[in-house]
């Protein structure tokens, strides 16, 4: 049986249906302004879009951000490096483990500190699990935006299993705060890697089922194919990163191109789109989850033994609790790290990690000591949303919903 699948060109249809300005002979239309959000189900949090409409066609889009601004950068200037770890949970709160890792690596670059292979592997496994979890939520929410409720139910069932694993590892389901400067908070529990593997085994067939609900779904395709097309040039000009950039056909993945935390040891593919529409971005995310499973399996297969923290970093990583209670030297060490913070040299570093939403960057300016002079957070969602005024113009209001879903942003890191 062969089925010819014709991809509908929604953008062309929209353009054809739209009369040229001032051409409508039957009636005069007036521009209408519509404030979408900040509490609107499709704005995934607190984004507000100030739309100007001509009938149902968007003629201008002005995103209003900042509703979730908490002044994280100001807060960071007023506390020690370790104290800021819990704040990184709340950037992209759908993938806190990935944020923890990115922040810790940035500070370790400042300290010129190498963490042991086991710590790197733990970080890679947790970051990829966070990626799966974030993409599952992204898909679920995208499904709801385009009228497919069941995807959400399936993907949240899987996320729940991931949360159980996170809880077992870090003690928290959501705000994990797992990284420390120079290591991770604790070693993996007995048998945990086996349970992660078991999750991966049962996850792949379910992932196919989830994606099967959308990939050749007529309604979903009508809502996404040819909608929100972002050209390669635009994607680069607006600083898009992550699946949104790759959906437009730029094969940039920092895990491959600027490897950190031992990503160079693992084999994985970087999916790229061809047209740069909402559908391509969806396909990229789907494939990235399969690749994440691949990475997790490889990392577990050669899971290194050894310490999960840099032992020689005595002025940075606080000693283990049992040592603190029994040894004077360690007690003093712990006291110094807690009161004065991990000691850093003066200088500046910029580090970007490939997070689920894109490149999460930390620019740290240090004057020495335990507190950063300036810490800038480059939130990928902030850059990804800046393209909205460009990409929403000329689309229908319902397409805006689909575009928002496909950009898969999170306001926690956009507003910081």
């Amino acid at each position, binding site marked *: 049986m062969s089925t010819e699948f014709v991809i509908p060109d929604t953008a062309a249809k929209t353009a054809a249906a739209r009369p040229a300005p001032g051409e409508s002979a039957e009636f005069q239309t007036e521009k209408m302004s519509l404030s979408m959000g900040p509490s609107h189900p499709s704005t995934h949090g607190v984004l507000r879009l100030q739309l100007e409409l001509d009938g149902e066609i968007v003629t201008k889009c002005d995103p209003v*951000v*900042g509703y979730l*601004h908490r*002044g994280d*950068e*100001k*807060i960071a200037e*007023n506390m020690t490096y370790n104290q800021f770890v819990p704040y990184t949970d709340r950037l992209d709160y759908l993938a806190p483990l990935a944020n923890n890792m990115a922040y810790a690596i940035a500070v370790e*670059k*400042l300290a*010129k500190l190498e963490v042991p292979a086991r710590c790197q592997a733990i970080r890679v496994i947790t970051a990829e699990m966070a990626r799966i979890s974030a993409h599952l939520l992204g898909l679920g929410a995208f499904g709801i935006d385009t009228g497919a409720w069941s995807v959400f139910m399936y993907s949240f069932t899987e996320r729940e299993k991931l949360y159980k694993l996170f809880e077992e590892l870090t003690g928290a389901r959501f705000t994990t705060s797992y990284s420390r400067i120079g290591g991770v908070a604790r070693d993996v529990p007995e048998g945990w890697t086996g349970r992660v593997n078991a999750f991966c085994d049962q996850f792949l067939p379910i992932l196919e089922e989830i994606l099967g609900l959308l990939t050749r779904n007529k309604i979903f395709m009508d809502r996404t194919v040819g909608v929100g097309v972002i050209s390669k040039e*635009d994607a*680069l*000009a*607006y*600083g*898009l990163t992550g699946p949104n950039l790759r959906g437009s056909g*730029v094969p*940039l993945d920092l895990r491959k*191109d*600027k490897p950190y935390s031992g990503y160079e040891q693992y084999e994985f593919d970087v999916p790229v789109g061809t047209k740069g529409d909402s559908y391509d971005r969806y396909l990229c995310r789907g494939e990235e989850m399969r690749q994440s499973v691949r990475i997790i399996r490889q990392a577990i297969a050669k899971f290194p033994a050894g310490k999960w923290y840099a032992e020689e970093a005595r002025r940075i990583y606080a000693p283990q609790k049992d040592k603190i209670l029994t040894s004077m030297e360690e007690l003093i060490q712990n006291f110094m790290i807690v009161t004065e913070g991990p000691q850093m*040299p003066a*200088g*500046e*570093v*910029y*580090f*970007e990690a490939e997070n689920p939403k894109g*490149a999460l*960057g930390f*620019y740290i*300016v240090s004057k020495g000591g335990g507190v950063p*002079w*300036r810490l*800038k957070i*480059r939130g990928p969602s*902030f*850059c990804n*949303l*800046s*393209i909205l005024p*460009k990409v929403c113009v000329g689309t229908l209001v319902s397409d805006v919903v689909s575009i928002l879903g496909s950009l898969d942003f999170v306001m926690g890191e956009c*507003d*910081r």
Partner: protein
Amino acid sequence: MSATVDVTTALREKFPQATLRDSLDHPAVNLPAADVPAALRFLRDERGFDLLADLTAVDWAEGASPRFTVVYHLFSTAGHEYLRVAADCVSDLEPAMPSVTALWAGADWHERECYDMFGIRFEGHPDLRRILMWEGYPYHPLRKEFPLAGIETPLPDAEVAAATGTKVIAAPMAGGPFVASPGEINLTEAEPRAKDESWNERHEKPEA
């Protein structure tokens, strides 16, 4: 690494006022503010730094001169290298910097954020207004003299508050920094509270 060393050398040949900047990781250069757009265009068009990864500023605190430095991080999608370009604002009181929105459309939001947080005016920016704080907010919060606890400001829509009868109260425990009181058995009591306890929701803040 050799390719990027070439970048800084090539940049310094073309812009003789550029100097190398101390850096712990990526190659970095200092530029005079006036050279920034031309130098970044050169880097983008001839050196392949096609992605503006980040644009931000550093405040070196009141009294320092130059006080504000604008920092650009460029990434080359072909060479997979970062480059840091920094430029000091000429004036310490009215800091300004030429805009690079003509080079990267994405610089628009970054420059608006920088203006919002530091009060640096980007000359040539098409629509320079606040982005994270609301329109009409009187301060630039990331300047070093701005206190961590914030400064009380009237609500943006005073007339809305008046019409709806909304009660306007300060954020709880505004006035930090916060300290936990040790030795309290009652957890409600031991929760972090503001150091200055002379005022709270029930008692007015004393006039300064």
